[in-house]
């Protein structure tokens, strides 16, 4: 992209600077692929273990391919390889990534190019949209400058004025204001959705040929996500970009992708048009994954995920024996009727926890205003809200982790003191709280046995041997197994850590479990197995639960009641069916309308 070259460039309808007859034009004219990944192999430098094993992917212009897989499946590694980048500790072990760029006549072999050539291609011909816009934007640089910087580095246009004009036009394209005041804003003055759109604008500024998106909507609220997805879809088509969309969210895939490729432990297990893969998955793993996706209608019973996963496997084994290809999917489809909400263990009745007129503010900012909420015995209430709605604040107030709220929270008719230290031992034992992130809720320096024994040590009346026994039972109850007692959190996966955290909440035989977004940091299949676990625990122990989440699709899978929190106010509260089918509030309606579904 030298200045001389862009001066003699011809303009496409969208204004992209291109040499006519470039590798891209040639490939597009011949109906070929713009991005070709062939038998790509990536291994660890230490030990040479292959983390990506023979991946083949082909993308045409204007096509959006979703690369689906769970944490550790190697999808991000493939995405970065498309940019010719390998994370430290990883090395290219075979195969190739070829891009047909629009600025030169020769195709670029990303896996073989030198650092300097790669730098010239990255950000111009191949661009990348990272997961967290808040981390990827430089906080000390105005947003207009950040987009302009991309253009400057790749020597776009011949003057500063021309570059500013491009910044304006790309801002308009992603649906942001293009005035000077907006370009002079700092990243922290924008919302998450706006920040991500700045990220999209940066990626599209140079009219790229290939785009890699690494879970660009994971951190966003549903309504914001809907807008961002639409922007991405539109930009991809109008700019005729070949987009590789990396995600773990199958519902998003259904909304946005033309084709889907499913990765499992470094291998591509299935690839095909979105409809085909989602309706009639061929591979067992895809079926398991689909069985784990919560849906609003509650048809996909993730509360029975483990049983269904085994059914899928059994059906496959059957199919293999009888060589009847239809029986597998049929077994999965056979369960396609909606379920009533999970059967409560006891007849819900007496209010166990009553929250009355609770307000809380941080200085000027009112986080909760006069919240009323009732938790009944043996019942699960879903507390729904977007980020910043105050749902964590409310659940922590109930758990006694925050002590500056006003109003009253009572448990079995007795008023609760604000902080746990001033509550009675029985109250502390009965109300348990599970934290959102399993990566910070367990002390990395202590074994699970030590961490899980803490609540018991504090209740005081058990001997060391009895405590160990209770910890073992709790580990069994969460299906981790007692072998985990001497392990440290660092050796565990996210799902295992969350199970251990739930076990810690269970050792004291609580009556109320407050789960604060406990599945939001986890993969869908892990989420499904945790929901399954909670459902079974409720049946076994008759627990009441407050399940805090931003994912409305979970409602029918876990809860009998739904309460919707918006900016510190409960706007909707009632039985699940009533709230979901006939929401009394426009905010709830909006949430329901924006939810992506399969």
């Amino acid at each position, binding site marked *: 992209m030298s200045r001389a070259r862009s001066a003699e460039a011809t303009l496409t309808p969208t204004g992209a600077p291109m040499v006519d007859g470039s590798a891209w034009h040639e490939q597009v004219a011949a109906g070929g692929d713009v991005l070709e990944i062939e038998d790509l192999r990536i291994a660890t430098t230490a030990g040479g273990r292959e983390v990506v094993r023979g991946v083949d992917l082909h993308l045409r212009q204007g096509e959006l391919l979703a690369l689906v897989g*769970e*944490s550790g499946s190697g999808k991000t590694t493939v995405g970065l390889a498309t940019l010719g980048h390998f994370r430290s500790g990883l090395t290219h072990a075979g195969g190739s990534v070829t891009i047909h760029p629009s600025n030169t006549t020769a195709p670029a072999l990303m896996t073989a190019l030198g650092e300097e050539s790669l730098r010239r291609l990255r950000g111009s011909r191949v661009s990348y949209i990272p997961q967290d816009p808040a981390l990827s934007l430089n906080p000390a640089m105005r947003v207009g400058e950040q987009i302009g910087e991309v253009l400057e580095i790749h020597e776009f246009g011949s003057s500063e004025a021309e570059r500013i004009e491009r910044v304006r036009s790309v801002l308009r394209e992603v649906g942001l204001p293009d005035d000077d005041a907006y370009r002079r804003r700092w990243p922290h003055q924008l919302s998450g959705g706006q920040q991500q759109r700045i990220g999209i604008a940066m990626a599209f500024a140079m009219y790229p040929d290939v785009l890699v998106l690494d879970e660009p909507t994971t951190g966003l609220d549903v309504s914001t996500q809907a807008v961002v997805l639409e922007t991405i879809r539109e930009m991809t088509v109008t700019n005729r970009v070949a987009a590789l969309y990396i995600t773990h969210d199958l519902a998003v895939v259904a909304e946005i992708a033309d084709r889907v490729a499913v990765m499992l*432990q470094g291998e591509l297990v299935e690839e095909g048009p979105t409809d085909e893969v989602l309706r009639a998955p061929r591979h067992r793993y895809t079926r398991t994954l689909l069985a784990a996706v919560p849906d609003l209608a509650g048809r996909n019973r993730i509360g029975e995920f483990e049983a269904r996963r085994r059914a899928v496997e059994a059906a496959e084994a059957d199919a293999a024996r009888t060589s009847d290809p239809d029986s597998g999917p049929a077994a999965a489809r056979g369960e396609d009727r909606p379920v009533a909400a999970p059967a409560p263990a006891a007849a819900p009745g007496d209010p166990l926890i009553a929250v009355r007129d609770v307000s809380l503010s941080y200085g000027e900012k009112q986080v909760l205003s006069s919240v009323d909420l009732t938790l009944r015995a043996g019942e699960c209430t879903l507390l729904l809200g977007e980020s910043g709605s105050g749902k964590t604040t409310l659940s922590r107030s109930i758990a006694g982790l925050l002590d500056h709220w006003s109003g009253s929270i009572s448990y079995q008719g007795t008023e609760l003191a604000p902080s746990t230290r001033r509550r009675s031992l029985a109250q502390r034992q009965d109300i348990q709280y599970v934290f959102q992130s399993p990566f910070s809720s367990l002390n990395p320096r202590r074994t699970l046995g030590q961490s899980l024994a803490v609540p018991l040590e504090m209740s005081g009346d058990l001997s060391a041997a009895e405590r160990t026994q209770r910890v073992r039972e709790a580990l069994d109850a969460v*299906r981790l197994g007692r072998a985990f007692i001497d392990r440290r959190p660092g050796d565990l996966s996210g799902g295992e850590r969350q199970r251990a955290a739930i076990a810690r909440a269970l050792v004291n035989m609580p009556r109320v479990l407050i789960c604060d977004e406990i599945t939001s940091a986890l993969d869908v299949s*892990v989420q499904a197995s945790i929901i399954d676990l909670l459902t079974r625990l409720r049946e076994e122990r008759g627990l009441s639960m407050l399940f805090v989440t931003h994912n409305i699709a979970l409602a029918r899978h876990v809860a009998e009641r739904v309460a919707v929190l918006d900016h510190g106010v409960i706007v909707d509260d009632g039985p699940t069916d009533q709230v979901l089918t006939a929401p009394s509030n426009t905010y709830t309606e909006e949430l329901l309308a924006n939810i992506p579904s399969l």
Partner: protein
Amino acid sequence: MTHATTPDSAVDPTTVDPSGAGPARSAPDRPARRSTLVTRTWAQRQAKVGVVLTALIVLIAVIGPLLLPWATGYTATGFADRPFQDTGLFGTDNLGRDVLSRFLAGGTSLLLYSVLATALGLFLGMLFGMVAAYIGGWLDALIMRSNDVLLAIPQLVFALLAITVLGPQPWVLVAVIAITHAPRIARVTRAATLDVIGEDYIRAAEMYAVPRRRILFREVLPNITGPLAVEAGLRLTYSIGAIASLSFLGLGMQPPAADWGLMINENRIALSLQPWGVMLPVLAIAVLTIGTNLIADSIARASASANVGEK
């Protein structure tokens, strides 16, 4: 970032049959590959060099007093009564005392007092730092502002003042050095503690009403050993320098004791005639401080790379 930090979750055993024996991964092969602060520190070449250098001087200081060719501690009045002695390997000083003997005997006090001063400073700083960070509020402000006041006084000036008032005794020396180190250690501890107390496992401990002292020592302390180890190594280096300097100025060990700092002072007038009297202790102190510094630096590097992936 979760996929970067948990490479093993691809084989997530939470999806393993619960009736099964447990995770498919074999437990025994994991601890062998466990990377701790110690293993990561030792993996660096400079750490090995540092340990060798430090060990050399420590050996001299500890074993030296057992191998003395001659007596070390007599004064000018004892000069006449001294037994006959040959000129040793490194000659004698102005009082005819054997330099090698005094060198071998002179490291113990320096090493002992600097380790004691560092340990005491570490304990005080750690305590105040953790308490300030954990309790917060006015106590935090009080502790940290007092810290700033102490930090404003230059270390040597403070030591001179205290020793002039209280007299040149070993305990004063140790206490003064410890007190000048404590504010610096408190700062580092406070910053490290603030990082840790934001974590949910501290909140969990709060929720179970774990006594505060226990939260500090069982939940917080094990997680800030990295920065504390770095700071301890660095402070030890400074302690050695400070105590040697004070002895040199005549405010540490008093004659006729054998001490490296004191030896440098006593023998510096004859530097051109009898350089060994100065050179031996100078070399020893230099090698010792370089050694401890290399170790501290390796710990710093190791703990910096440790913080990635712990969460």
